[in-house]
Protein backbone atom coordinates (compact mmCIF):
# COMPACT_ATOMS: atom_id res chain seq x y z
CA UNK A 1 0.00 0.00 0.00
CA UNK A 2 1.32 3.42 -1.01
CA UNK A 3 1.08 6.67 0.92
CA UNK A 4 -0.27 9.48 -1.24
CA UNK A 5 0.57 12.93 0.07
CA UNK A 6 -0.33 16.47 -1.01
CA UNK A 7 2.21 18.99 -2.28
CA UNK A 8 2.01 22.55 -3.61
CA UNK A 9 5.51 23.16 -5.07
CA UNK A 10 8.94 21.53 -5.50
CA UNK A 11 10.04 22.28 -1.93
CA UNK A 12 6.98 20.57 -0.48
CA UNK A 13 7.48 17.65 -2.90
CA UNK A 14 11.03 17.17 -1.56
CA UNK A 15 9.75 17.46 2.02
CA UNK A 16 6.92 14.95 1.54
CA UNK A 17 9.11 12.45 -0.31
CA UNK A 18 11.78 12.67 2.40
CA UNK A 19 8.97 12.10 4.93
CA UNK A 20 8.02 8.83 3.25
CA UNK A 21 5.40 9.61 0.59
CA UNK A 22 5.30 6.98 -2.18
CA UNK A 23 2.99 9.10 -4.33
CA UNK A 24 2.26 12.83 -4.37
CA UNK A 25 -0.57 14.91 -5.84
CA UNK A 26 -0.50 18.44 -7.20
CA UNK A 27 -2.67 21.03 -8.97
CA UNK A 28 -1.62 22.82 -12.15
CA UNK A 29 -2.27 26.40 -13.18
CA UNK A 30 -4.54 27.56 -16.02
CA UNK A 31 -5.31 30.75 -17.92
CA UNK A 32 -8.99 29.80 -18.17
CA UNK A 33 -9.80 31.19 -14.70
CA UNK A 34 -8.46 34.01 -12.56
CA UNK A 35 -9.00 32.37 -9.16
CA UNK A 36 -9.95 28.75 -9.82
CA UNK A 37 -8.03 25.97 -11.52
CA UNK A 38 -9.30 22.81 -13.17
CA UNK A 39 -8.39 20.97 -9.96
CA UNK A 40 -10.73 20.86 -6.98
CA UNK A 41 -8.98 23.88 -5.44
CA UNK A 42 -8.27 27.52 -6.21
CA UNK A 43 -4.85 28.90 -7.22
CA UNK A 44 -4.27 30.26 -3.71
CA UNK A 45 -5.25 29.10 -0.24
CA UNK A 46 -7.10 31.30 2.25
CA UNK A 47 -3.83 32.92 3.34
CA UNK A 48 -3.12 33.92 -0.27
CA UNK A 49 -0.29 31.38 -0.71
CA UNK A 50 0.02 29.87 -4.17
CA UNK A 51 -0.90 26.15 -4.16
CA UNK A 52 -0.65 25.27 -7.86
CA UNK A 53 2.29 25.02 -10.26
CA UNK A 54 3.03 26.08 -13.86
CA UNK A 55 4.19 23.69 -16.59
CA UNK A 56 7.90 24.16 -15.88
CA UNK A 57 7.49 23.65 -12.13
CA UNK A 58 5.37 20.58 -12.81
CA UNK A 59 8.07 19.08 -15.02
CA UNK A 60 10.72 19.68 -12.33
CA UNK A 61 8.49 18.04 -9.70
CA UNK A 62 7.81 15.04 -11.94
CA UNK A 63 11.49 14.59 -12.76
CA UNK A 64 12.54 14.85 -9.13
CA UNK A 65 9.78 12.48 -7.96
CA UNK A 66 10.55 9.88 -10.61
CA UNK A 67 14.24 10.02 -9.66
CA UNK A 68 13.11 8.96 -6.18
CA UNK A 69 10.72 6.29 -7.55
CA UNK A 70 7.68 8.32 -6.46
CA UNK A 71 4.55 8.66 -8.64
CA UNK A 72 2.84 11.98 -9.38
CA UNK A 73 -0.95 12.36 -9.48
CA UNK A 74 -2.16 15.46 -11.31
CA UNK A 75 -5.51 16.82 -10.13
CA UNK A 76 -8.01 17.80 -12.84
CA UNK A 77 -11.00 17.23 -10.60
CA UNK A 78 -12.93 20.48 -10.60
CA UNK A 79 -16.34 19.06 -9.60
CA UNK A 80 -18.09 20.69 -12.54
CA UNK A 81 -18.00 20.26 -16.31
CA UNK A 82 -20.44 21.40 -19.00
CA UNK A 83 -20.68 22.54 -22.61
CA UNK A 84 -19.27 25.94 -23.54
CA UNK A 85 -21.70 28.82 -23.66
CA UNK A 86 -19.93 30.46 -26.60
CA UNK A 87 -17.13 29.54 -29.02
CA UNK A 88 -15.11 32.58 -27.96
CA UNK A 89 -14.52 31.25 -24.45
CA UNK A 90 -13.64 27.58 -24.80
CA UNK A 91 -13.42 26.14 -21.28
CA UNK A 92 -13.48 22.59 -22.64
CA UNK A 93 -10.34 23.29 -24.66
CA UNK A 94 -8.87 24.94 -21.55
CA UNK A 95 -9.49 21.69 -19.67
CA UNK A 96 -7.93 19.57 -22.45
CA UNK A 97 -4.88 21.86 -22.50
CA UNK A 98 -4.63 21.53 -18.70
CA UNK A 99 -4.72 17.72 -18.88
CA UNK A 100 -2.28 17.67 -21.82
CA UNK A 101 0.17 19.79 -19.80
CA UNK A 102 0.16 17.09 -17.13
CA UNK A 103 0.66 14.29 -19.63
CA UNK A 104 3.51 16.18 -21.36
CA UNK A 105 5.21 16.70 -18.00
CA UNK A 106 5.07 12.93 -17.47
CA UNK A 107 2.61 12.63 -14.56
CA UNK A 108 1.58 9.08 -13.66
CA UNK A 109 -2.16 9.62 -13.29
CA UNK A 110 -4.78 12.30 -13.96
CA UNK A 111 -7.39 12.69 -11.20
CA UNK A 112 -10.80 13.58 -12.68
CA UNK A 113 -14.25 13.87 -11.21
CA UNK A 114 -17.06 15.09 -13.45
CA UNK A 115 -18.59 12.49 -15.77
CA UNK A 116 -18.44 14.98 -18.66
CA UNK A 117 -14.68 15.36 -18.27
CA UNK A 118 -14.24 11.58 -18.52
CA UNK A 119 -16.49 11.37 -21.59
CA UNK A 120 -14.64 14.23 -23.32
CA UNK A 121 -11.20 12.71 -22.68
CA UNK A 122 -12.45 9.40 -24.09
CA UNK A 123 -13.96 11.10 -27.12
CA UNK A 124 -10.74 13.00 -27.79
CA UNK A 125 -8.84 9.72 -27.40
CA UNK A 126 -6.46 11.17 -24.82
CA UNK A 127 -4.90 8.05 -23.37
CA UNK A 128 -3.66 8.21 -19.78
CA UNK A 129 -4.03 6.53 -16.40
CA UNK A 130 -7.19 8.10 -14.95
CA UNK A 131 -8.17 8.18 -11.29
CA UNK A 132 -11.74 8.95 -10.27
CA UNK A 133 -11.80 11.59 -7.56
CA UNK A 134 -13.68 11.25 -4.30
CA UNK A 135 -16.01 13.96 -5.65
CA UNK A 136 -17.93 11.08 -7.28
CA UNK A 137 -18.50 9.62 -3.79
CA UNK A 138 -18.08 5.95 -4.69
CA UNK A 139 -19.72 3.80 -2.01
CA UNK A 140 -20.68 0.62 -3.88
CA UNK A 141 -19.18 -1.88 -6.33
CA UNK A 142 -21.69 -1.08 -9.08
CA UNK A 143 -20.62 2.57 -9.23
CA UNK A 144 -17.07 1.33 -9.50
CA UNK A 145 -18.08 -0.87 -12.48
CA UNK A 146 -19.91 2.07 -14.09
CA UNK A 147 -16.73 4.14 -14.11
CA UNK A 148 -14.44 1.19 -14.91
CA UNK A 149 -16.23 0.71 -18.24
CA UNK A 150 -15.44 4.37 -18.98
CA UNK A 151 -11.70 3.71 -18.65
CA UNK A 152 -11.06 4.63 -15.01
CA UNK A 153 -8.11 2.69 -13.57
CA UNK A 154 -8.16 3.89 -9.98
CA UNK A 155 -11.04 4.99 -7.75
CA UNK A 156 -10.91 7.02 -4.56
CA UNK A 157 -13.65 5.68 -2.29
CA UNK A 158 -15.99 7.97 -0.35
CA UNK A 159 -14.91 9.53 2.94
CA UNK A 160 -17.79 7.70 4.55
CA UNK A 161 -17.27 4.00 3.82
CA UNK A 162 -16.74 1.53 6.64
CA UNK A 163 -13.87 -0.95 6.87
CA UNK A 164 -16.26 -3.85 6.13
CA UNK A 165 -17.51 -2.06 3.04
CA UNK A 166 -13.97 -1.35 1.84
CA UNK A 167 -13.13 -5.04 2.21
CA UNK A 168 -16.26 -6.07 0.30
CA UNK A 169 -15.73 -3.54 -2.50
CA UNK A 170 -12.07 -4.63 -2.80
CA UNK A 171 -13.17 -8.27 -3.03
CA UNK A 172 -15.65 -7.39 -5.80
CA UNK A 173 -13.16 -5.29 -7.74
CA UNK A 174 -9.90 -7.16 -8.24
CA UNK A 175 -8.95 -5.21 -11.37
CA UNK A 176 -9.32 -1.71 -9.94
CA UNK A 177 -6.75 0.21 -7.92
CA UNK A 178 -8.59 1.37 -4.78
CA UNK A 179 -7.55 4.45 -2.85
CA UNK A 180 -9.03 5.28 0.56
CA UNK A 181 -8.80 8.29 2.82
CA UNK A 182 -6.13 7.88 5.44
CA UNK A 183 -6.18 11.17 7.26
CA UNK A 184 -9.01 13.70 7.57
CA UNK A 185 -11.74 14.22 4.98
CA UNK A 186 -15.11 15.90 4.66
CA UNK A 187 -18.26 15.67 6.74
CA UNK A 188 -20.72 15.68 3.85
CA UNK A 189 -21.02 13.92 0.52
CA UNK A 190 -19.26 15.74 -2.29
CA UNK A 191 -22.45 17.38 -3.61
CA UNK A 192 -22.15 19.61 -0.51
CA UNK A 193 -23.19 23.19 -1.23
CA UNK A 194 -21.26 24.49 1.79
CA UNK A 195 -18.04 23.99 -0.23
CA UNK A 196 -14.97 25.99 0.74
CA UNK A 197 -11.35 26.22 -0.43
CA UNK A 198 -12.38 27.57 -3.82
CA UNK A 199 -10.73 30.97 -3.68
CA UNK A 200 -12.08 32.65 -0.56
CA UNK A 201 -9.72 34.43 1.84
CA UNK A 202 -9.59 34.31 5.62
CA UNK A 203 -11.34 37.71 5.84
CA UNK A 204 -14.41 36.14 4.18
CA UNK A 205 -14.92 34.18 7.43
CA UNK A 206 -16.15 31.04 5.67
CA UNK A 207 -13.67 28.78 7.44
CA UNK A 208 -14.60 25.09 7.44
CA UNK A 209 -18.40 25.36 7.68
CA UNK A 210 -19.10 21.87 8.98
CA UNK A 211 -16.70 22.38 11.92
CA UNK A 212 -18.56 25.49 13.03
CA UNK A 213 -20.62 25.63 16.25
CA UNK A 214 -24.36 25.79 15.73
CA UNK A 215 -27.46 26.26 17.85
CA UNK A 216 -30.09 23.64 17.21
CA UNK A 217 -33.77 24.53 17.57
CA UNK A 218 -36.93 22.47 17.21
CA UNK A 219 -39.78 23.40 14.87
CA UNK A 220 -41.22 25.94 17.32
CA UNK A 221 -37.77 27.51 17.64
CA UNK A 222 -37.11 26.22 21.15
CA UNK A 223 -33.33 25.97 21.64
CA UNK A 224 -32.39 22.30 22.14
CA UNK A 225 -28.61 22.43 22.39
CA UNK A 226 -25.47 23.94 20.95
CA UNK A 227 -22.56 22.12 19.36
CA UNK A 228 -20.71 20.97 16.24
CA UNK A 229 -23.76 19.17 14.92
CA UNK A 230 -22.53 19.22 11.30
CA UNK A 231 -19.03 17.94 12.08
CA UNK A 232 -18.78 14.28 11.01
CA UNK A 233 -15.16 14.42 9.97
CA UNK A 234 -12.81 11.72 11.26
CA UNK A 235 -9.06 11.98 11.18
CA UNK A 236 -6.98 8.86 11.65
CA UNK A 237 -6.67 5.40 10.08
CA UNK A 238 -3.48 4.23 11.82
CA UNK A 239 -5.12 1.28 13.60
CA UNK A 240 -6.77 0.07 10.38
CA UNK A 241 -3.61 -0.05 8.24
CA UNK A 242 -3.20 -3.81 8.61
CA UNK A 243 -6.73 -4.56 7.37
CA UNK A 244 -6.48 -2.03 4.54
CA UNK A 245 -3.12 -3.37 3.38
CA UNK A 246 -3.99 -7.05 3.61
CA UNK A 247 -7.19 -6.47 1.64
CA UNK A 248 -5.34 -5.05 -1.33
CA UNK A 249 -5.97 -1.31 -0.93
CA UNK A 250 -3.60 0.36 -3.36
CA UNK A 251 -3.12 3.77 -1.78
CA UNK A 252 -3.83 5.69 1.39
CA UNK A 253 -4.61 9.35 0.79
CA UNK A 254 -3.53 12.13 3.15
CA UNK A 255 -5.29 15.44 2.56
CA UNK A 256 -4.06 19.04 2.73
CA UNK A 257 -3.12 20.64 -0.59
CA UNK A 258 -4.01 24.02 0.89
CA UNK A 259 -2.62 23.42 4.38
CA UNK A 260 0.74 23.95 6.09
CA UNK A 261 3.15 21.58 4.34
CA UNK A 262 5.43 21.22 7.39
CA UNK A 263 2.46 19.90 9.36
CA UNK A 264 1.48 17.67 6.42
CA UNK A 265 5.00 16.23 6.34
CA UNK A 266 4.78 15.25 10.03
CA UNK A 267 1.57 13.35 9.31
CA UNK A 268 3.23 11.65 6.32
CA UNK A 269 6.15 10.59 8.56
CA UNK A 270 3.77 9.00 11.08
CA UNK A 271 1.89 7.02 8.42
CA UNK A 272 5.09 6.02 6.66
CA UNK A 273 6.60 4.68 9.88
CA UNK A 274 3.38 2.91 10.81
CA UNK A 275 3.07 1.30 7.40
CA UNK A 276 6.63 -0.01 7.65
CA UNK A 277 5.76 -1.71 10.95
CA UNK A 278 2.75 -3.33 9.32
CA UNK A 279 4.72 -4.47 6.26
CA UNK A 280 7.57 -5.84 8.35
CA UNK A 281 5.57 -7.59 11.05
CA UNK A 282 2.57 -8.62 8.98
CA UNK A 283 0.69 -9.48 12.13
CA UNK A 284 -2.23 -7.41 13.30
CA UNK A 285 -1.77 -6.99 17.04
CA UNK A 286 2.00 -6.85 17.05
CA UNK A 287 2.14 -4.09 14.46
CA UNK A 288 -0.71 -2.16 16.09
CA UNK A 289 1.09 -2.14 19.44
CA UNK A 290 4.35 -1.01 17.83
CA UNK A 291 2.56 1.80 16.02
CA UNK A 292 0.73 3.01 19.12
CA UNK A 293 4.00 3.06 21.08
CA UNK A 294 5.64 5.34 18.53
CA UNK A 295 2.80 7.81 17.96
CA UNK A 296 3.60 11.38 19.05
CA UNK A 297 1.95 12.46 22.32
CA UNK A 298 -0.07 15.21 20.58
CA UNK A 299 -1.47 12.62 18.20
CA UNK A 300 -2.60 10.39 21.07
CA UNK A 301 -4.14 13.37 22.85
CA UNK A 302 -5.95 15.01 19.93
CA UNK A 303 -6.88 11.95 17.90
CA UNK A 304 -6.70 8.72 19.96
CA UNK A 305 -8.29 10.11 23.13
CA UNK A 306 -11.05 11.75 21.11
CA UNK A 307 -11.65 8.55 19.17
CA UNK A 308 -11.04 10.20 15.82
CA UNK A 309 -10.71 6.77 14.17
CA UNK A 310 -11.95 6.79 10.58
CA UNK A 311 -12.61 3.08 10.34
CA UNK A 312 -13.26 1.97 13.93
CA UNK A 313 -16.34 2.05 16.12
CA UNK A 314 -17.13 5.53 17.52
CA UNK A 315 -20.08 7.92 17.79
CA UNK A 316 -19.72 9.08 14.21
CA UNK A 317 -19.27 5.69 12.51
CA UNK A 318 -22.14 4.38 14.65
CA UNK A 319 -24.33 7.10 13.15
CA UNK A 320 -23.65 6.05 9.54
CA UNK A 321 -26.87 5.12 7.78
CA UNK A 322 -27.48 1.94 5.77
CA UNK A 323 -24.56 -0.02 7.20
CA UNK A 324 -26.08 -3.42 7.74
CA UNK A 325 -27.25 -5.55 4.90
CA UNK A 326 -31.02 -6.08 4.89
CA UNK A 327 -31.45 -4.04 8.09
CA UNK A 328 -33.74 -1.37 6.69
CA UNK A 329 -36.07 -3.77 4.92
CA UNK A 330 -36.25 -7.49 5.17
CA UNK A 331 -33.90 -9.01 2.65
CA UNK A 332 -35.96 -10.25 -0.27
CA UNK A 333 -35.62 -11.51 -3.79
CA UNK A 334 -36.88 -9.72 -6.87
CA UNK A 335 -39.91 -12.02 -7.29
CA UNK A 336 -41.34 -11.03 -3.93
CA UNK A 337 -41.89 -7.50 -5.25
CA UNK A 338 -44.04 -8.73 -8.10
CA UNK A 339 -47.69 -9.07 -7.17
Amino acid at each position, binding site marked *: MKILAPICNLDSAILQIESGANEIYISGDTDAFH*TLTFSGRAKHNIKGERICVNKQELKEIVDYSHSKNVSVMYTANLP*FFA*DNISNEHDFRKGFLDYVSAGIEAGVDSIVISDLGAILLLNKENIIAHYTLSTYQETMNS*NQLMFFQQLGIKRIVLSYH*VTLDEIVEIAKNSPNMELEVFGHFGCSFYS*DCNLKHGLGERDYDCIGTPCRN*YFQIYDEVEQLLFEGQILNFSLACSICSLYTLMTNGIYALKLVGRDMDMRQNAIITQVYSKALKYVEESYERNYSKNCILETLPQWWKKTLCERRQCKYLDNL*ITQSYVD*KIKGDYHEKRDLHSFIN
Partner: protein
Amino acid sequence: MKKGIYIRSLIDYCDNEIEKTDVDIIVVGNYGCARASPSFEQCISTSKKLQKKKRLLHYISPKLSEAAFENEFKKVLSLLNDNISVSINDWGLVYRLKPYIKMEHNLYIGRLLTTSFANLVWDEVFLRNESEQAKQYLWQNNMNDKNKIDLLNNYSIKGIEVDAVNKIENSCRRIREMGLQIIGYTKDTLLSVSRSCPIKRYFGEHDANCKTLCCNKYIIKPTGQKSRNIYPEMYLQGNVLYQVRENDDLYDFYTLVVNENYTKNRKESI
Protein backbone atom coordinates in the same frame (compact mmCIF):
# COMPACT_ATOMS: atom_id res chain seq x y z
CA MET B 1 -46.03 22.65 -16.24
CA LYS B 2 -47.06 20.00 -13.73
CA LYS B 3 -47.10 20.83 -10.04
CA GLY B 4 -45.67 18.54 -7.39
CA ILE B 5 -45.03 18.40 -3.68
CA TYR B 6 -42.03 16.69 -2.07
CA ILE B 7 -42.73 14.71 1.09
CA ARG B 8 -40.27 12.55 2.99
CA SER B 9 -42.52 9.81 4.26
CA LEU B 10 -45.77 8.10 3.38
CA ILE B 11 -46.44 7.04 6.98
CA ASP B 12 -48.48 10.14 7.81
CA TYR B 13 -49.75 10.69 4.30
CA CYS B 14 -53.33 9.59 4.81
CA ASP B 15 -56.33 9.21 2.51
CA ASN B 16 -57.60 12.60 3.62
CA GLU B 17 -54.48 14.32 2.29
CA ILE B 18 -54.69 12.41 -0.97
CA GLU B 19 -58.31 13.55 -1.28
CA LYS B 20 -57.57 17.23 -0.76
CA THR B 21 -54.25 17.55 -2.63
CA ASP B 22 -54.25 19.95 -5.55
CA VAL B 23 -50.94 18.90 -7.11
CA ASP B 24 -50.32 16.56 -10.05
CA ILE B 25 -47.46 14.59 -8.54
CA ILE B 26 -46.53 13.50 -5.02
CA VAL B 27 -42.74 13.12 -4.85
CA VAL B 28 -41.61 10.92 -1.98
CA GLY B 29 -38.28 9.57 -0.80
CA ASN B 30 -35.10 10.31 1.02
CA TYR B 31 -31.83 11.49 -0.53
CA GLY B 32 -29.64 10.21 2.27
CA CYS B 33 -31.02 7.03 3.80
CA ALA B 34 -32.50 3.88 2.26
CA ARG B 35 -33.76 2.80 5.66
CA ALA B 36 -35.87 5.95 6.00
CA SER B 37 -37.30 5.64 2.48
CA PRO B 38 -40.91 4.49 2.05
CA SER B 39 -41.31 0.78 1.48
CA PHE B 40 -42.29 -0.78 -1.83
CA GLU B 41 -45.71 -1.68 -0.42
CA GLN B 42 -46.35 1.88 0.84
CA CYS B 43 -45.44 3.28 -2.56
CA ILE B 44 -47.70 0.86 -4.44
CA SER B 45 -50.64 1.40 -2.12
CA THR B 46 -50.36 5.21 -2.26
CA SER B 47 -49.84 5.17 -6.01
CA LYS B 48 -53.06 3.21 -6.50
CA LYS B 49 -55.01 5.68 -4.38
CA LEU B 50 -53.46 8.63 -6.22
CA GLN B 51 -54.25 7.13 -9.62
CA LYS B 52 -57.95 7.11 -8.73
CA LYS B 53 -57.64 10.87 -8.25
CA LYS B 54 -55.65 11.12 -11.52
CA ARG B 55 -52.49 11.97 -9.59
CA LEU B 56 -49.07 10.32 -9.82
CA LEU B 57 -46.42 9.13 -7.37
CA HIS B 58 -42.71 9.76 -8.02
CA TYR B 59 -40.10 7.95 -5.90
CA ILE B 60 -36.64 9.31 -5.00
CA SER B 61 -33.96 6.70 -4.44
CA PRO B 62 -31.09 7.69 -2.11
CA LYS B 63 -27.30 7.63 -2.40
CA LEU B 64 -26.43 3.96 -1.84
CA SER B 65 -23.98 2.13 0.36
CA GLU B 66 -22.79 -1.35 -0.59
CA ALA B 67 -25.14 -2.83 2.01
CA ALA B 68 -28.22 -0.95 0.84
CA PHE B 69 -27.60 -1.51 -2.84
CA GLU B 70 -29.25 -4.78 -3.87
CA ASN B 71 -32.54 -4.23 -2.06
CA GLU B 72 -32.82 -0.72 -3.45
CA PHE B 73 -32.11 -2.00 -6.97
CA LYS B 74 -34.93 -4.55 -6.68
CA LYS B 75 -37.29 -1.99 -5.21
CA VAL B 76 -36.59 0.61 -7.92
CA LEU B 77 -36.95 -1.90 -10.73
CA SER B 78 -40.25 -3.14 -9.31
CA LEU B 79 -41.58 0.42 -8.91
CA LEU B 80 -40.62 1.20 -12.52
CA ASN B 81 -42.43 -1.95 -13.66
CA ASP B 82 -45.47 -0.70 -11.74
CA ASN B 83 -45.40 2.57 -13.73
CA ILE B 84 -44.06 4.66 -10.87
CA SER B 85 -41.44 7.17 -11.99
CA VAL B 86 -38.12 7.17 -10.10
CA SER B 87 -35.19 9.54 -9.60
CA ILE B 88 -31.88 7.87 -8.81
CA ASN B 89 -28.92 9.45 -7.06
CA ASP B 90 -26.23 6.85 -7.59
CA TRP B 91 -24.32 6.06 -10.81
CA GLY B 92 -23.98 2.46 -9.60
CA LEU B 93 -27.75 2.08 -9.66
CA VAL B 94 -27.89 3.61 -13.16
CA TYR B 95 -25.39 0.97 -14.24
CA ARG B 96 -27.16 -1.92 -12.47
CA LEU B 97 -30.56 -1.01 -13.94
CA LYS B 98 -29.38 -0.65 -17.54
CA PRO B 99 -30.12 -4.21 -18.79
CA TYR B 100 -33.65 -4.03 -17.36
CA ILE B 101 -34.76 -0.57 -18.47
CA LYS B 102 -37.48 -0.35 -21.10
CA MET B 103 -38.62 2.68 -23.07
CA GLU B 104 -41.84 2.94 -21.03
CA HIS B 105 -39.95 3.27 -17.74
CA ASN B 106 -39.74 6.78 -16.34
CA LEU B 107 -36.26 7.08 -14.89
CA TYR B 108 -34.65 10.39 -13.88
CA ILE B 109 -31.23 11.47 -12.62
CA GLY B 110 -31.56 12.94 -9.12
CA ARG B 111 -30.31 16.17 -7.62
CA LEU B 112 -27.24 14.59 -5.99
CA LEU B 113 -25.84 13.91 -9.48
CA THR B 114 -26.71 17.24 -11.10
CA THR B 115 -24.63 20.13 -9.87
CA SER B 116 -23.86 23.77 -10.49
CA PHE B 117 -21.72 26.46 -8.90
CA ALA B 118 -25.03 28.34 -8.66
CA ASN B 119 -26.10 25.93 -5.90
CA LEU B 120 -23.10 26.79 -3.69
CA VAL B 121 -23.86 29.07 -0.76
CA TRP B 122 -20.74 31.19 -1.38
CA ASP B 123 -20.52 31.05 -5.18
CA GLU B 124 -20.42 34.86 -5.42
CA VAL B 125 -17.36 34.90 -3.12
CA PHE B 126 -15.53 32.17 -5.08
CA LEU B 127 -16.27 33.74 -8.45
CA ARG B 128 -15.92 37.44 -7.60
CA ASN B 129 -12.64 37.79 -9.51
CA GLU B 130 -13.61 35.55 -12.43
CA SER B 131 -14.57 36.89 -15.86
CA GLU B 132 -18.26 37.15 -16.74
CA GLN B 133 -17.76 34.28 -19.22
CA ALA B 134 -16.30 32.02 -16.50
CA LYS B 135 -19.20 32.87 -14.16
CA GLN B 136 -21.76 32.08 -16.81
CA TYR B 137 -19.98 28.80 -17.60
CA LEU B 138 -19.85 27.68 -13.96
CA TRP B 139 -23.41 28.80 -13.20
CA GLN B 140 -24.82 26.23 -15.62
CA ASN B 141 -26.23 22.92 -14.57
CA ASN B 142 -23.57 20.29 -15.26
CA MET B 143 -25.98 18.18 -17.30
CA ASN B 144 -25.81 20.77 -20.09
CA ASP B 145 -23.23 18.56 -21.75
CA LYS B 146 -23.92 16.83 -25.07
CA ASN B 147 -21.69 13.85 -24.20
CA LYS B 148 -23.51 13.31 -20.89
CA ILE B 149 -26.90 13.59 -22.51
CA ASP B 150 -25.90 11.04 -25.19
CA LEU B 151 -24.87 8.69 -22.37
CA LEU B 152 -28.13 9.28 -20.48
CA ASN B 153 -30.10 8.59 -23.68
CA ASN B 154 -28.16 5.36 -24.03
CA TYR B 155 -29.34 4.46 -20.51
CA SER B 156 -32.98 5.39 -21.40
CA ILE B 157 -33.04 8.22 -18.86
CA LYS B 158 -36.07 10.48 -19.35
CA GLY B 159 -34.91 13.56 -17.49
CA ILE B 160 -33.07 15.17 -14.62
CA GLU B 161 -33.85 16.85 -11.32
CA VAL B 162 -32.39 20.25 -10.46
CA ASP B 163 -32.66 22.77 -7.67
CA ALA B 164 -34.60 25.63 -9.25
CA VAL B 165 -32.18 28.51 -8.81
CA ASN B 166 -32.51 31.20 -11.46
CA LYS B 167 -28.83 31.27 -12.48
CA ILE B 168 -29.16 27.86 -14.17
CA GLU B 169 -32.17 28.82 -16.27
CA ASN B 170 -30.36 29.11 -19.63
CA SER B 171 -28.62 25.78 -19.22
CA CYS B 172 -31.95 24.16 -18.33
CA ARG B 173 -33.39 25.50 -21.56
CA ARG B 174 -30.53 23.91 -23.51
CA ILE B 175 -30.90 20.60 -21.66
CA ARG B 176 -34.59 20.59 -22.53
CA GLU B 177 -33.79 21.34 -26.17
CA MET B 178 -31.54 18.27 -26.17
CA GLY B 179 -34.54 16.15 -25.21
CA LEU B 180 -34.47 15.71 -21.42
CA GLN B 181 -37.36 16.61 -19.13
CA ILE B 182 -36.44 18.77 -16.14
CA ILE B 183 -37.96 18.44 -12.69
CA GLY B 184 -37.24 21.59 -10.71
CA TYR B 185 -37.31 21.77 -6.89
CA THR B 186 -38.08 25.04 -5.22
CA LYS B 187 -38.93 26.58 -1.86
CA ASP B 188 -36.23 24.85 0.18
CA THR B 189 -33.35 23.29 -1.73
CA LEU B 190 -30.73 20.67 -0.82
CA LEU B 191 -27.60 21.96 0.91
CA SER B 192 -25.78 18.77 1.87
CA VAL B 193 -26.25 15.10 2.61
CA SER B 194 -24.02 13.02 4.88
CA ARG B 195 -23.58 9.31 5.57
CA SER B 196 -23.43 10.20 9.24
CA CYS B 197 -26.87 11.07 10.58
CA PRO B 198 -26.66 13.86 13.17
CA ILE B 199 -30.13 13.12 14.46
CA LYS B 200 -29.24 9.48 15.13
CA ARG B 201 -25.98 10.61 16.73
CA TYR B 202 -27.19 13.46 18.92
CA PHE B 203 -30.37 11.85 20.10
CA GLY B 204 -28.59 8.57 20.67
CA GLU B 205 -31.24 6.62 18.82
CA HIS B 206 -30.59 3.11 17.62
CA ASP B 207 -31.60 1.96 14.17
CA ALA B 208 -34.94 0.64 15.36
CA ASN B 209 -36.16 4.09 16.44
CA CYS B 210 -34.28 6.61 14.35
CA LYS B 211 -36.69 6.46 11.42
CA THR B 212 -39.41 8.13 13.50
CA LEU B 213 -37.15 11.09 14.33
CA CYS B 214 -35.95 11.89 10.87
CA CYS B 215 -39.14 13.56 9.66
CA ASN B 216 -38.73 16.15 12.41
CA LYS B 217 -37.24 19.43 11.33
CA TYR B 218 -34.33 20.91 13.31
CA ILE B 219 -33.41 24.55 12.62
CA ILE B 220 -29.65 25.20 12.58
CA LYS B 221 -28.15 28.63 13.30
CA PRO B 222 -24.43 29.43 13.59
CA THR B 223 -23.47 30.46 17.11
CA GLY B 224 -21.22 33.37 16.14
CA GLN B 225 -22.66 36.63 14.82
CA LYS B 226 -20.14 36.86 11.95
CA SER B 227 -21.21 33.44 10.73
CA ARG B 228 -24.89 34.30 11.12
CA ASN B 229 -24.35 37.14 8.66
CA ILE B 230 -23.02 34.87 5.93
CA TYR B 231 -24.93 31.59 6.40
CA PRO B 232 -28.33 31.00 4.80
CA GLU B 233 -31.39 29.85 6.78
CA MET B 234 -30.90 26.11 7.21
CA TYR B 235 -32.59 23.10 8.75
CA LEU B 236 -31.83 19.42 9.19
CA GLN B 237 -34.11 16.47 8.54
CA GLY B 238 -32.30 13.22 9.27
CA ASN B 239 -28.98 13.34 7.46
CA VAL B 240 -30.13 15.92 4.90
CA LEU B 241 -29.42 19.63 5.34
CA TYR B 242 -31.80 22.03 3.55
CA GLN B 243 -31.54 25.71 2.69
CA VAL B 244 -34.66 27.85 2.95
CA ARG B 245 -35.25 29.53 -0.42
CA GLU B 246 -38.31 31.22 -1.71
CA ASN B 247 -37.63 33.98 -4.16
CA ASP B 248 -36.03 32.50 -7.26
CA ASP B 249 -37.81 33.25 -10.50
CA LEU B 250 -39.30 30.11 -11.88
CA TYR B 251 -38.31 28.63 -15.20
CA ASP B 252 -40.86 26.65 -17.18
CA PHE B 253 -39.97 23.19 -15.90
CA TYR B 254 -41.60 19.93 -16.93
CA THR B 255 -42.59 19.58 -13.28
CA LEU B 256 -42.04 22.04 -10.44
CA VAL B 257 -41.89 20.47 -7.00
CA VAL B 258 -42.29 22.37 -3.75
CA ASN B 259 -40.94 21.04 -0.44
CA GLU B 260 -43.74 20.16 1.98
CA ASN B 261 -41.99 22.11 4.76
CA TYR B 262 -42.68 25.31 2.88
CA THR B 263 -46.42 24.71 2.64
CA LYS B 264 -46.61 23.40 6.21
CA ASN B 265 -44.93 26.51 7.61
CA ARG B 266 -46.99 28.96 5.67
CA LYS B 267 -50.26 27.06 5.60
CA GLU B 268 -50.51 28.01 1.94
CA SER B 269 -51.78 26.03 -0.96
CA ILE B 270 -49.33 25.70 -3.84
